[in-house]
């Protein structure tokens, strides 16, 4: 439901990732996290930088 | 204004004064007293306040909360605030160390009418953390002991470890000119003094109402029965004084939370006589 709703309000679907990693799959866990972080970095900030003074 | 505050010059009632916590006393498992000193020695020197006035302590990033200044104006080496762990700000306050810095906005609100208490007997009835506002006035009176006739203090808490200001209590017990009556709600190993709720102890002690001012602070349920008890001992309403509590934010009588009718607890209070309270509409 969330996967379809986020694009509706203008948030790119690639910013949301939902997967199943069991406790034993340490390697996959590391892969998923680094992969997703890189993916989000490429997309850049969603809003202008949320500094405090805004 | 202290050097680490770039201010617009005009005095700003919302701007706290930075102070350093010099000492933290563990009064009870959930109550700590904080002794603070303003960073600006100038400000500390000419800071004046009256017993019963309150201050707002700021933990920047968490928020602000109101506490009575419970060290007397006659002992100005530090300002002391007792804080019971309850909500966001108080819990955060309980995690800071000596030497940390907090913001203080003081003095705020009105104070005990100690002028027209002179020459009268004084009856203090306190419960748990309610002892904080009373302690200010007691110490002030002890520093001007001659002005007042006999002083009776009835102070109770759930269990002996819950009694605040243990060293003060010891001192007051030894003094001949103070009649201290301590009580705890029910039996406790090693406790040899009275047992019973404060309102019941008040009835047993049955102080005379003549020429006596009664000051009571404590949990609402206790105050309810204490007021009934005092009425039973036919204390006139104008001789019964209490301090009120409410949710407070601005502390200067604008933000609309703590008003009872057109009176604001943070500015026109927190000290009220029962006579005044009877005139005001419910909050």
């Amino acid at each position, binding site marked *: *439901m*969330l996967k*379809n*709703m986020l*694009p*509706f*309000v*203008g*948030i*790119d679907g690639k910013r949301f990732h939902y997967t199943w990693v069991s406790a034993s799959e340490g390697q996959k866990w590391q892969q998923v996290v680094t992969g997703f972080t890189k993916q989000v970095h490429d997309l850049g900030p969603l*809003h202008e930088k*949320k500094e405090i003074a*805004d | 204004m202290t050097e680490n505050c770039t201010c617009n010059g005009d005095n700003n009632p919302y701007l706290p004064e930075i102070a350093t916590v010099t000492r933290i006393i563990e009064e009870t498992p959930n109550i700590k007293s904080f002794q603070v000193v303003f960073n600006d020695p100038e400000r500390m020197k000419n800071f004046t306040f009256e017993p019963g006035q309150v201050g707002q302590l700021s933990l920047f990033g968490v928020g602000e909360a109101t506490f009575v200044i419970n060290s007397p104006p006659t002992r100005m080496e530090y300002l002391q605030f007792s804080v019971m762990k309850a909500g*966001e700000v108080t819990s955060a306050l309980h995690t800071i160390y000596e030497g940390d810095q907090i913001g203080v906005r003081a003095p705020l609100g009105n104070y005990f009418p100690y002028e027209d208490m002179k020459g009268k007997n004084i009856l203090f009835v306190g419960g748990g953390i309610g002892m904080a506002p009373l302690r200010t006035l007691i110490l002030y009176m002890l520093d001007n002991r001659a002005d007042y006739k006999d002083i009776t203090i009835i102070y109770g808490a759930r269990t002996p470890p819950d009694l605040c200001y243990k060293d003060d209590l010891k001192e007051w017990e030894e003094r001949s000119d103070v009649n201290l009556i301590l009580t705890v709600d029910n039996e406790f190993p090693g406790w040899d003094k009275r047992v019973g709720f404060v309102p019941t102890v008040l009835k047993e002690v049955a102080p005379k109402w003549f020429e006596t001012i009664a000051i009571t602070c404590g949990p609402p349920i206790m105050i309810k029965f204490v007021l009934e008890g005092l009425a039973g001992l036919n204390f006139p309403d104008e001789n019964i004084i209490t301090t009120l509590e409410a949710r407070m934010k601005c502390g200067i009588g604008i933000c609309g939370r703590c008003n009872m009718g057109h009176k604001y607890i943070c500015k026109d209070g927190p000290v009220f006589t029962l006579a005044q309270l009877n005139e005001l509409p419910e909050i």
Partner: protein
Amino acid sequence: MSTEKLKETIQKVFPDVETVICWQEGFDKLHTTPLFMTASAQEAKVVWNPLCVQNLTSYLPSMKKKVAVVVKGCDSRTIVQFMEEGLIDRNNVVIIGIPCRGVVSVKKVLRAVDFQPIEDVKCVDDTVIVKTASGEKTLKVSDVWPDKCATCQYPTPVIYDYLIGDAIESDKPAESVYEDVREFETKTLEERKAYFEREFGKCIRCYACRNACPMCVCQDSCIAETRDPHWITQKLSAQEKMMFHMIHSIHLAGRCVECGECERVCPMDIPVAKIKKKINAEMKYLYDYTTGANPDDKPPMYTFNVDEAKIKEHKL
């Protein structure tokens, strides 16, 4: 005509309940306002016409005694949803249902008369005659009704103890309900993002949409205001406002009965219901579930079973 029938029914119901929640004329001819009728003497004030826009069922969860409530079709779905979620005790509520051919949107009527002060409004079967300083104007209800009426599937209440007049069928195609959602999805990502940021940027956070929503029963401990650390700050940036509306929408997943109150009450006229309609469209697609349709349904978010009966899950 039907107002008289409604008054008769209220008389019949009265001895059995303390209060009857219905409508009365509001502060001007265009507005009605809820009436908590406690004595049959107030019966004269009762009205029923296309101006009766409020969803009166939103008061039910906080009512402690037995009450009667007058409901239109869309309002009655709220009662069914309450029953599904156990928010009301069914035998503590007497439901007086009224078949409804559509109500008016006050905003659209005002727009039609260019926002001039209203002098008089008369409702004549399915038209509304609005009198302002520059004369009278006859508006067809179907030209000024809120969007929910344009695709209304439930003109007759889905549940009632008494029905005023006879039931009427919906003449609107079922798939038209989520047409505006599909049409909005044809826009590009940036367009949609700009749209929501502009519209929700006007929000003044008065929480009228949350407090008017019948399904929002946890207003006093709403996550938007009572969590430590704060979920959303008090600052007024578009992100904080958007975050609140997302919290509100997601908490209505599989619960929103599309009564349109959130959009009707917004003082800044923000299309607040758009996100909720999208979620409802998803609920329909994923779980084939329509909110407030049948009391024995279980809302999808209420139940968790490993393999959902109605989801076409790809077998791993």
